[in-house]
């Protein structure tokens, strides 16, 4: 559960490795190249060639407070870390030496918030992500000098701020795809990739039945070729929700220094005295409420046992010269006395005091708008209510005394507290609360009586009218059967109706007094079932005919059953079908040509094989064959789907080898070609002066395929026009057109319900409604248990 990979993991972009949840540490992400070839260095550094430019652009920015000695003091306060920091990827690759100086200026500035545009510029990076060396500190350079030759490559500093996998507890958020840790932009999962992957296993379905499979995810738009849609992201980039992952080097009090990794804060200079004065720092980004729950931990470093530290949240405008909790819009848990403080209530004893060596966890639950704390992996409880409803929250820590230091874990390392379990509990609670919702009658009407908010409606009526159980069952039946009808699952529809009738008879249902005024078609359904059955059948036949390339049957059958479909839009559908017919004819000639070619090759082989055995009498005949222009067995019907040459027994070829047969082949090819040309001429006569530009374009493109020896292999626009996918698209289109001509929606109501619901939930999440983050439709409705 906790390590479910994000959907994006199916996308073959190298960087995906670093987004995998199973990879908790940086080390796990780095392959071990024992002898890195020179080319590798170039590769590793090249994504960064753009970075120094971005850096120099920022060079004019104030360089914060840090002095060069800061780096040293950082090391001394965290000896366990400094060891590992010295082993950095950069320092251990000899070839990187010349580029070091370019990275050196980063020291002390690495915590400057990277402008979003810069993030976007970052190229997608290989899994040996150079971003891991991006903020190599001066310390590591100094320390690494003599050790260089013996440092194993895979040991990388854990303190360099890098893109790290999204903490697994955030996987409970339905917006998890949008939540991003620092640095490189995740490859956005594209839905089409997934569709094409899953449809691989469903090809049978495609062939046997309709196959709007591949387009079912976008039935409301014209079918697009698959190859193009792969590039269409399902989520626009501007909607990415950045997670707070490090302290800001700007949103901090000058008394504090931020370590290059962005996680450690140290109090510099003389201690501040009195309750009021303090030095706080915020994270670079606020917390997106779409997290559902956000959690971070703070380890108290330093020397003095007693610390004057407050950990909590602040809004953007809160003074940084106060501890969190002192000012309005800030909340904090104090280390010296264990009190919790915010301006809404007077300070109260909340939990134990804490000091050096302790790890304090701090979380905000956007489903309840409560702030909770943990100490050394144990939940203390909830300290504040009504937090973050209409305010961007920044994780904030305030320090007061010299020598005090903290180190935050925003998910870079495993948490001490089992936050995954915590979130899971809250997820379940939220979901079961949502599932207590009663179904309201307005669902059937799509609108309410007025434009007022739901609260005012409740006041007007007292109660919102809800659906009875019986009515909701009927709604379901209607949704299911219209879905089945839409996709033409005729047998299922019949079986379902038969069983429902039987059940209804047994239950002897009384008519419900108020069921009548809703247009639920259940009672009519059985009387209609025959018509529906016939309708599905003829629609299915037409669709299947298109899928099989039998356009004539499709046109005839459509003309018989749904004449209006062909005529609508000035016979546009007829035109499209006729174009396809021409394509099919051309493909037929191509197939014959191909068979001829492979037959020849085959015969050459046969010849060689057989020659060794009976070299005398066969010679003559075989030579004749090879020289002939159009050999090939007449009995082989060329079909698009099943090139049959491999199944031909060579002896058949040989025995069929007489002059009459060869003529037959030649004439077969010729007549196929003639048919195609005649058909093409008819098309030209009918459409060359058609004023519609889209008709003209399609018409020209269609005729153009003649120029290709094998249009199926041509690729690009030609392949799009002739491929089996094009058939599928056309079959889908005609299915839609028939449904539309009957006044049915172009996509089943059920699908619209799903999409509409998902859009609502997504919008809620983006608006900061935390509960929506725990309404995870794909988890609840799509994943198989």
């Amino acid at each position, binding site marked *: 559960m906790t390590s479910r990979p994000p959907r994006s993991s199916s996308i073959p972009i190298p960087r995906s490795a670093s987004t995998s949840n199973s990879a908790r540490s940086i080390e796990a992400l780095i392959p071990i190249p024992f002898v890195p070839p020179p080319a590798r260095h170039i590769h590793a550094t090249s994504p960064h060639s753009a970075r120094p430019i971005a850096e120099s652009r920022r060079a004019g920015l104030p360089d914060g407070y840090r002095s060069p000695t800061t780096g040293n003091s950082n090391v001394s306060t965290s000896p366990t870390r400094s060891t590992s920091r010295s082993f950095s990827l950069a320092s251990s690759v000899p070839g990187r030496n010349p580029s070091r100086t370019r990275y050196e200026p980063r020291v002390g500035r690495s915590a400057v918030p990277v402008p979003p545009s810069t993030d976007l510029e970052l190229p997608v990076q290989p899994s040996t992500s150079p971003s891991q060396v991006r903020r190599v500190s001066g310390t590591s350079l100094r320390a690494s000098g003599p050790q260089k030759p013996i440092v194993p490559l895979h040991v990388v500093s854990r303190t360099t701020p890098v893109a790290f996998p999204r903490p697994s507890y955030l996987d409970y958020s339905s917006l998890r795809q949008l939540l991003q840790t620092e640095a490189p932009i995740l490859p956005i999962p594209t839905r089409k990739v997934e569709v094409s992957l899953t449809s691989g296993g*469903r090809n049978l379905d495609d062939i046997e039945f309709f196959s709007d499979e591949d387009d079912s995810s976008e039935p409301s738009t014209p079918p697009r070729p698959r190859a193009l849609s792969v590039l269409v992201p399902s989520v626009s980039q501007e909607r990415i929700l950045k997670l707070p992952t490090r302290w800001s080097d700007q949103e901090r009090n000058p008394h504090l220094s931020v370590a290059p990794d962005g996680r450690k804060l140290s109090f510099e200079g003389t201690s501040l005295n009195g309750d009021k004065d303090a030095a706080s720092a915020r994270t670079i980004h606020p917390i997106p409420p779409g997290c559902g729950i956000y959690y971070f931990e703070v380890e108290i470093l330093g020397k003095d046992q007693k610390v004057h530290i407050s950990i909590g949240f602040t809004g953007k405008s809160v003074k940084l010269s106060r501890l969190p909790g002192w000012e309005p819009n800030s909340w904090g848990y104090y280390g010296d006395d264990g009190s919790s403080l915010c301006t809404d209530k007077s300070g109260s004893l909340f939990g134990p005091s804490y000091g050096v060596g302790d790890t304090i966890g701090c979380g905000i639950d956007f489903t309840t708008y409560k702030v909770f704390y943990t100490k050394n992996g144990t939940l203390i409880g909830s300290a504040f209510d009504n937090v973050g409803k209409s305010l961007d929250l920044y994780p904030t820590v305030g320090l007061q005394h010299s020598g005090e230091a903290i180190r935050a874990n925003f998910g870079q390392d495993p948490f001490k507290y089992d936050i995954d379990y915590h979130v899971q509990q809250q997820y379940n609670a939220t979901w079961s609360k949502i*599932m207590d919702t009663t179904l309201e009658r307005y669902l059937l009407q799509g609108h309410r009586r007025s434009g007022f908010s739901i609260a005012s409606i409740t006041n007007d009526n007292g109660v919102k009218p809800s659906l009875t159980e019986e009515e909701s069952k009927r709604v379901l039946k209607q949704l299911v059967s219209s879905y089945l009808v839409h996709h033409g699952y005729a047998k299922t529809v019949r079986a379902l109706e038969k069983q429902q009738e039987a059940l209804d008879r047994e239950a002897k249902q009384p008519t419900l007094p108020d069921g009548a005024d809703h247009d639920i078609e259940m009672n009519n359904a059985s009387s209609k079932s025959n018509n529906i059955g016939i309708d599905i059948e003829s629609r299915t036949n037409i669709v299947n005919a298109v899928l099989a390339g039998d356009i004539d049957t499709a046109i005839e059958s459509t003309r018989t059953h749904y004449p209006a479909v062909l005529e609508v839009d000035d016979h546009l559908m007829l035109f499209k079908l006729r174009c396809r017919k021409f394509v099919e004819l051309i493909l037929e000639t191509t197939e014959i040509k191909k068979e001829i070619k492979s037959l020849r090759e085959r015969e050459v082989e046969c010849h060689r094989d057989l020659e060794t055995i009976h070299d005398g009498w066969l010679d003559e005949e075989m030579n004749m064959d090879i020289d002939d222009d159009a050999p090939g067995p007449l009995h082989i019907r060329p079909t698009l789907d099943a090139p049959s040459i491999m199944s031909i027994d060579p002896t058949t070829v040989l025995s069929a080898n007489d002059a009459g047969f060869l003529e037959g082949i030649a004439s077969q090819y010729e007549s196929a070609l003639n048919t195609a040309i005649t058909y093409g001429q008819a098309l030209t006569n009918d459409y060359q002066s058609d004023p519609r530009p889209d008709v003209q374009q399609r018409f020209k493109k269609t005729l153009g395929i003649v120029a290709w020896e094998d249009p199926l292999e041509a690729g690009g626009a030609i392949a799009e026009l002739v491929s089996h996918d094009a058939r599928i698209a056309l079959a889908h289109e005609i299915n839609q057109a028939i449904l539309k001509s009957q006044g049915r929606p172009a996509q089943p109501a059920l699908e619209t319900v799903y999409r509409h619901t998902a859009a609502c939930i997504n*919008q809620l999440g983006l608006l900061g409604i935390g509960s929506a983050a725990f309404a995870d439709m794909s988890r609840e409705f799509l994943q198989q248990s």
Partner: protein
Amino acid sequence: MPPKQLIRKEEWEKRLHDVQVTKTDLNRLIMDYLVIEGYKSAAEEFSQETNLEPAVDFESIESRMDIREALQRGDVEDAITRVNDLNPEILDTNPALYFKLQQQKLIEFIRHGRIAEALQFAQDELAPRGEESPEFLSELERTMALLAFESAPNPPSAIAELLSPAQRMKTAGEVNAAILESLSQGKEVKLVGLLKLLCWGENLLEEKVAFPKLNVLDGSFVERG
């Protein structure tokens, strides 16, 4: 309060289009409905027409449906036997469910005017359970009240509804859910959950944003300014 954001139909449709869901996903939801509601033959046909494997074997659907039918016929004894055939633990571990079945049996006795049997059964089987929990007791009292109103022309609806087909269906539904749970299947049809989520989501979103509303029956949108 800031003015409500307005999402136009075109924009909304674009978002709908961006939602990740495939036909197979939806087919699974349909299969879930067919299985849980017990449409065995439809589930079989659907499995064939879509190449979709159902999560349970079709036989368990059938025995579940047999139990449901028995209850809808009023043959509680048969239903109890069949539940025990399927999985004896269901009734052992779920006293509330067992009580409801016994209550239904009592109702059926009364329905058929077998008053003596009804009384005997109530005393032997139900009264001891009524002592176990106040909830059982009040249900038992409600059921026994049927006897008092037996010949009255207009009994109170709370009493009369016990004799309605809806009561049988309710019991059948509860047994069905218990069996599904014992098979570690979802006990509620996912599509019901979907509709609930829709209600929840639309209500909440309407407080913040004006957006097109959906008529779930035909999938059409109504846009309000």
